[in-house]
């Protein structure tokens, strides 16, 4: 076992003998879904580090009251860039990256339905991220050199009007969101078309791996949600340059209209980000519990229900706007209803663990932490959905803590889990379990120091997006704890990045199926050949590899 020394190659590396230039050409011109997936992931990791550093700078500033570490203008740019980057240039690309890599492999296809659209979508999204950061060099236009946008990640009107945002920093924000939206639409279309048209023999919709089902629903939500966002960006550009008055309140425009446009995208966006995290959990929890997922039809139904309901809850971001008691009651109800399908998911994961044989490998550790943290995030979400409670908690640090519990505690934990689980498939090498456990425990402690304690200043009246605060408000001790946790998370993330790099060269050889798993991607070599499957596979159940390994008692008897 230890005698195997040949370095595993990323897909395509072997076919690029012409040195560095040929290698770059190979990656830039590729239409292979696996390479595009990996590029999405690497690109997102790069921005994860950038936006993480922005978070650390903010936490230094807020560690003590009346701090002067950064200027107010700098702080406002930091939270704008942190939010925009994390949502559009970390969350979306990393999840699309895994989707790109996994969906064709899991349905027994050789590639996505539209490989060239796939490459286009990636490159336009990548360009959008660099365009956003180019504002640091050129954002002020004729007013001076560079400033990043400082309007907040949801860029409420009329702060984005030219009178309040002179220069071009807001235009960089608008255009980068517009372009990344085009990329996201392209990839969503591709995933839907691939899932519907490219399945192998026997892969009926009722046999789709749950991951693919969830990516299908995510992509459908993305269609509906990203269109109004794109429309709003164009309307904003018309306001800023062609004399329109959609959001220009000084000429009779409406600030509330922008809020509707933004949040009818913004809330479904939460589900666009969290459904892939659920998708990873649906694959990883059964494998490490050694049991089939409990209630597959219920999981699919719950996902589709979440998809529909998520389109009708947006105004819970607007409970303090003065929509009136009728609208507040309606959106309270629709938001609370979403707890039912989400609850079904948690209970089904619980039932999958029940009676299993749970192995605590690193992917499973992250998945278990995800279950607890998502439970808490869901419950604080219920609190926020009760609109009078939201009149107090909205726009406070309680909300910031709540959505970071979703984005970090649920989504990022599942992304880490997915890395440990599928990295062997992508590179042919295992990530170090020892480093992985250090990463897990350090990150877990840092996460809870930061985001558990972040709820408290919110309850004590601390609004979000303030660059400093008064010493007499009783917020100082909590902010200090929150900031210290942030650094622990940063150290853990560095360990993770080190693990990714080190294991690429020195990790144990993975083999095709290191986790003794059941879906089709584990039936091919690690990394898979560029054509994925030499012959089209045929499946007869949801777990084709289980049937293969247990011919005496295949799933086909029970489905």
């Amino acid at each position: 076992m230890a005698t195997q020394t040949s370095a595993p190659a990323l897909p395509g590396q072997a076919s690029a003998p012409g040195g560095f230039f040929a290698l770059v050409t190979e990656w830039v011109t590729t239409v292979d879904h696996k390479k595009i997936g990996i590029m999405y992931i690497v690109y997102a990791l790069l921005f994860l580090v950038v936006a993480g550093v922005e978070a650390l700078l903010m936490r230094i500033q807020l560690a003590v009251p009346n701090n002067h570490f950064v200027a107010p203008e700098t702080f406002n740019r930091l939270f704008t860039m942190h939010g925009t980057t994390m949502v559009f240039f970390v969350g979306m690309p990393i999840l699309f990256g895994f989707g790109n890599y996994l969906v064709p492999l899991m349905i027994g296809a050789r590639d996505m339905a539209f490989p060239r659209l796939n490459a286009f979508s990636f490159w336009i999204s990548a360009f959008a991220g660099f365009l956003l950061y180019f504002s640091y060099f050129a954002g002020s236009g004729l007013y001076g050199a560079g400033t990043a946008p400082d309007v907040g990640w949801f860029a409420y009107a009329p702060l984005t009007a030219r009178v309040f945002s002179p220069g071009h920093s807001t235009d960089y924000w608008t255009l980068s969101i517009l372009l990344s939206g085009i990329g996201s639409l392209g990839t969503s279309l591709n995933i839907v078309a691939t899932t519907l048209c490219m399945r192998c023999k026997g892969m009926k919709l009722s046999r789709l791996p749950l991951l693919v089902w969830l990516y299908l629903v995510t992509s459908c939500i993305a269609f509906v949600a990203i269109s109004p966002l794109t429309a709003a960006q164009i309307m904003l550009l018309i306001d800023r340059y062609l004399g329109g008055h959609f959001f220009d309140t000084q000429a009779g425009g409406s600030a509330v209209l922008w809020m509707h446009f933004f949040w009818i995208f913004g809330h479904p966006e939460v589900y666009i980000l969290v459904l892939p995290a659920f998708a990873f959990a649906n694959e990883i929890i059964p494998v490490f519990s050694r049991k089939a997922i409990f209630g597959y039809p219920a999981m699919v139904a719950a996902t589709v229900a979440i998809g529909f309901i998520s389109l009708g809850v947006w105004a819970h971001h607007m409970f303090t706007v003065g929509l009136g008691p009728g609208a507040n009651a309606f959106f309270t109800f629709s938001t609370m209803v979403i707890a039912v399908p989400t609850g079904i998911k948690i209970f089904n994961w619980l039932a999958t663990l029940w009676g299993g044989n749970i192995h605590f490998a690193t992917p499973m550790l992250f998945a278990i932490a995800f279950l607890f943290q998502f439970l808490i995030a869901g419950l604080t979400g219920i609190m926020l959905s009760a609109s009078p409670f939201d009149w107090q908690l909205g726009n406070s640090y309680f909300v910031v803590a709540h959505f970071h519990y979703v984005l970090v505690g649920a989504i990022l934990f599942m992304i880490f889990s997915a890395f440990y689980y599928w990295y062997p498939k992508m590179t042919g090498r295992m990530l170090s379990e020892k480093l992985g456990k250090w990463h897990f425990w350090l990150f877990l402690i840092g996460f809870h120091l930061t985001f558990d304690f972040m709820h408290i200043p919110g309850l004590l009246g601390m609004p979000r997006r303030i660059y400093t605060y008064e010493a007499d408000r009783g917020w100082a001790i909590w902010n200090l704890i929150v900031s210290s946790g942030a650094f622990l998370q940063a150290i853990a993330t560095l360990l993770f990045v080190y693990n990714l790099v080190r294991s690429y060269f020195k990790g144990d050889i993975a083999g095709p199926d290191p986790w003794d798993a059941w879906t089709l991607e584990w039936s091919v070599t690690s990394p898979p050949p560029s054509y994925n499957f030499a012959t089209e596979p045929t499946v007869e159940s949801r777990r084709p590899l289980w049937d293969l390994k247990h011919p005496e008692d295949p799933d086909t008897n029970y489905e």
Partner: protein
Amino acid sequence: MSLSMNLDPVQNLPAAVPPSHMQALHPPALSHAAFLPALLATKIFQSPTNIFAPEATPAQSIFGLSLFVLAICGSVFLVVAGLLLYAIIRFRHRPHDSDREPPQIYGSNQVELSWTVIPVIIIVVLFLTTTRVIFLTEHAPRPKDALDVTVIGHQFWWEFRYPKLGIVTANELHVPVSDPAHPTPTYLTMESADTDHSFWVPSLAGKMDVLPNKVNIMWIDPEKPGIYLGQCAQYCGVEHAKMLIRVYADTPAQFAAWVAHQRSPAVIDPAVAEGRQVFFHNACIDCHTIQGTAAHGIFGPDLTHLASRDTIASGSVPLTPNNLRLFVDNPANFKPGALMPPMHLNDHDLNAVTKYLLSLR
């Protein structure tokens, strides 16, 4: 305990606050039987802006609802997290386990139905309770003795207009206390002069956004005299962080005296004629109003009775001669990004105009 010593908000309030105003800042009495309120009243959670220390009806009804929601969510957490923890410990892989896979269970419609129906019932109860509070607050009948105040959000300060009393002031809102037997709540009509803001004084009520081209109305009825603190809760630009609010709940006698004083004409003190000269010969009058004079500017706070206030720079520093001088010299000394430009006065003029402003009691 030693950790929380410095957190006592009362110690750090500006010295100008008279002791009688401080009562409201003490933690709520430990009369609630529930564990959570008791915990939140402990010293480490002490804050003048604690949402769990309500002092007016809207904040109280939210507090009641929040305890109910917290109790339900807490119970759900204990049950589900307990089950998860049990499953993880009970069904963990042990070294001596055989390699045989555990029995495969694919699902059960009865079980699925039960964990669908139970949450539905919980949600219906939560929704009905919440809706009651929504309508109690937003559809409350308006008592005939209510006071009207127009709140106008500016980058980065608050303007308060009392249309029926003819008073205009800034950043420090005076309202009468409201006796439950004869309620005299204050109705705040919210407007914005520029960007979005949000008016949030946690111990009195939930926040209400202050938006351009949209008029919102909220009400407060503090029962105890005191100072209630808050701040802007919707990002509005560079100095969003220092757009603080102070609400003074006055006894009827205090409030009547305050109204009478604010309605009196601006003080004209011959001793500060030089500073007055500086004020009226500079750009000050373009943005500020002093009633009864040629200063009619509307972009900055009304200064007619500036020296009757406890703070300047939207509540960020106490009004002292030195602070005022520093602020006039360059507002960025306290609020970088404030829209008032540095006035570039020489020391002599600066001292003179500071003296004049301090005479505007």
